[in-house]
């Protein structure tokens, strides 16, 4: 948990424009409909001709220590990517990118092509795709189905 959480407030004016105001609240404040956020919202409403229409709390959860966890090897630049493509129940496509792909994702004979599902051991991007299908959804709430994975490099100038 970070030392503070980010609170984003959306303010609507009479012309239909939306302004965004970012402030910070204590790390213990996690509920955007809770008392602390509502007090700030009410304060903004009192100061403004506009009205607060939405509040969002963003909490950071630490996962790894960078120095301990970064690996090196082929495709270890942040601009090397695996792009995972999904289709949702409404027929729309969604793409998610994993940077610096591990070499275990690639074909054993061609390190510019992602390995197939039949490769042993199975390339780890398949587990990521399964996780996204299981735990994630489209912004609309529609379920996601894995379509394909491709490797690409965001810039062409990296050796």
């Amino acid at each position, binding site marked *: 948990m970070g*030392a*503070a959480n980010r609170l984003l407030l959306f*303010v609507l*004016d*009479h012309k239909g*424009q*939306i*302004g*965004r105001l*970012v*402030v910070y*609240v*204590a*790390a213990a404040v996690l509920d955007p*409909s809770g008392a602390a*956020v509502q*007090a*700030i919202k009410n*304060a*903004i*409403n*009192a100061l*403004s*001709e*506009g*009205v607060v*229409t*939405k*509040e*969002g*709390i963003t*909490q*950071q959860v*630490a*996962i*790894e*220590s*960078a120095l301990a*966890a*970064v*690996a*090196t*090897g082929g495709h*270890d*630049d*942040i*601009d090397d990517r*695996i792009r995972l493509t999904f289709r949702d129940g409404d027929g729309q496509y969604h793409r*998610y*990118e*994993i*940077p*610096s*792909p*591990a070499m275990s994702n690639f074909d054993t004979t061609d390190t510019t092509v992602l390995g197939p599902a039949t490769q042993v051991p199975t390339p780890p991007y398949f*587990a990521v795709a399964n*996780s996204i299908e299981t*735990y*994630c959804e489209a912004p609309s*709430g529609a379920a996601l189905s894995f379509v394909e994975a491709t490797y690409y490099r965001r810039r062409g100038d990296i050796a």
Partner: protein
Amino acid sequence: MRPVSYKWIDNDGERATTRLYVKAAVGAGDFTNLQANLMACSNAALLYRAETKENAEATPGTPDTGNYSVIREALALEFRSVVTGLLYTYHVPAPDDAIIGVDDETVIATDTDLDGIPDVIQAAITAMTTNMTDPHGGALKFSRAFRSKTRFYKGS
């Protein structure tokens, strides 16, 4: 649907973000599984996830009109961190007519209790300093208020 951003860093110190939308029912164990699979897939380190919870107001009310009632106009509120001494300025868009004078375009400065906070914003400032912190969790103290322009008025 909850937006979640995963922040990566590679061995050159460059960063990247993978933004997903997780299902409402996803819990701590599910995040552990998802993150373990992401980490196994990449050479980069997964620094943190930033998870957003949103509350859309069911009845936000109707915006008022007035002299400065558009998003680009702002009431700038400056706070000082009591821990670091750094200043943080927040721009409240479309300030109320009762706060900024039309003729001199400054915050109406009547301060009955002489605490340095103008009467017209006293209650709001008290609520903000009670519930807001600096980015490191330190308390804030009101510094000053003035008319300004918003820098960010694009939203969704």
